[in-house]
């Protein structure tokens, strides 16, 4: 059974968003971390940076590849996970929990409507993730 929590929203690029009022907590999915392999480095924007929905906000580097991270929603970064520089492996061990990456204060909470449901995301990953 794929690890795709029902309460989260998803992007086609394998990020998840947990909506908390006008804020969205963001990370990458269990499927994404599995595909990447051991994560060795995560590059995040600074608090205060502006991010745009479906534009890159950082990169995640595994032993196999360096991949862009895409913002699920538009807004301002209000929090980043300060643990990740020291413990990038949290992205592998707990992608929906301690492996979170940043919190975005959404400029338009309607962005959430454009994201995928858990069921849709499950269909995407069942088809190979593309």
């Amino acid at each position: 059974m794929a690890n795709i929590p029902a309460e989260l929203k998803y992007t086609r690029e394998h990020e998840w968003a947990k909506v908390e009022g006008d804020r969205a907590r963001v990370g990458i999915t269990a499927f994404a971390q599995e595909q990447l392999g051991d994560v060795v480095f995560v590059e995040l924007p600074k608090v205060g940076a502006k991010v745009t929905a479906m534009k890159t906000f950082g990169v995640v580097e595994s032993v196999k590849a360096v991949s862009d991270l895409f913002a699920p929603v538009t807004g301002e970064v209000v929090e980043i996970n300060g643990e990740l520089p020291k413990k990038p492996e949290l992205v592998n061990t707990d992608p929906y929990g301690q492996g979170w990456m940043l919190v975005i204060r959404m400029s338009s909470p309607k962005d959430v409507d454009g994201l995928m449901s858990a069921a849709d995301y499950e269909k995407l990953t069942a088809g190979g993730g593309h």
Partner: protein
Amino acid sequence: MRYISNTSAQQKEMLAIIGASSIEDLLVRIPAKARLSRPLNLPRAMAETELVRHLQRMSGLNAGADDYACFLGAGSYDHAVPSPINHLISRGEFFTAYTPYQPEASQGTLRSIFEYQTMMAELTGLDVANASIYDGASSLAEATLMAHAATGRDTLVIARGVNPLYRQVVETYVEGPGLKIKSAPLGDGVTDADALRKTLSKHVAAVVIQYPNFFGCLEDVRSIADIAHEAGALLVVVADPINLGLLTPPGASGADIVVGEGQGLGVPMSFGGPNLGVFAAKQELVRRMPGRLVGATVDVDGQRGFVLTLQTREQHIRREKATSNICTNVALCALMATIYAAILGKRGLRKVGELSTAKAHYAARELTKVPGVSLRFGAPFFKEFALRLPKSPERVIRRLVKDRLLAGVPLKGFDRAYKDCLLVAVTEKRTKEEIDAYAAALAAAVA
């Protein structure tokens, strides 16, 4: 290397496989007017011995540093090349100009590159150096792109003391990403600190200086580092590593990135190349560093081994999003530098610096005794200096060639403002007799 031709039978076989009836068939798409309709205008064929003699005669027309007292510099220097270098690099295990493409199978090559990186990191005073880039100019261009990526800023401030040819290469590189270039003017031979401050803003990604600069003068790296850092910009220093055995490593004075031409370290001038692009940076910039990087590790049995590391950011994996389009290194030249530095050691490198600067100062004193000849700048210089001449530098150069002296590099081609100037470099190889002969010939030429 011999040219191996193919026979007409082999040509027919190859054509048959691709379904063409003749070589002409392959060329039909090239318009007739773009094609040469007559045979190439080549001299008659020669036998091998005859050809060798012919080419030797042609190469004898060159005025090279082996037969002339060479005072040329401006980026390429006539430092001594110890003979073990040529013997060692000629070994089959090493003798390739290329970076290892099946790296783990080339442990010896990787180890030599690792040692090269270690030496360059120590000489520049920075945490990490890459496996080398083409030359000093491309290293600088890559450094400016790296500063842009690291800071997210889009303006570069390049001091007028940076080699103008390097500046041109930077201009070419940054055209694509659309970076702006501003200049920090020179005072009396070194960057004017107040003028530099006026060029800075929150848009400046990097301040670029050269140490010693293009005119040989010694910049105050520490003060310029402070000025750059106050504005949130990185400091990129262009430095010739051979000088850093004596001079303070720029990394110790606050430079974030140090790049330079490493040709002086055991690589002959060879009329301008191949060269050696040195590239070193602070640890926090390592993931934005272009080019190859060799790391030391241990294998499953705990034995020391070497690997190419951080390759995930290179072109062959990351395609158009790679850190840089460079994923090679100049392996053979880097090896020459490694052997050179190993042979000379800490004291030897220091001695090269001491001799070069002492001889350069002796030369400057003797040459400026010639009536009408003076130093162009007042700032302290290292092994190179600009002279102002009372007669056309080009004519003086031509005249001195007759005395088997390569007098220097005329500055007119770099900047019209220096049309009466000659840039003179003096390495440890120059003798007192050569310098005295230069002074006498110069006196005669400008009299």
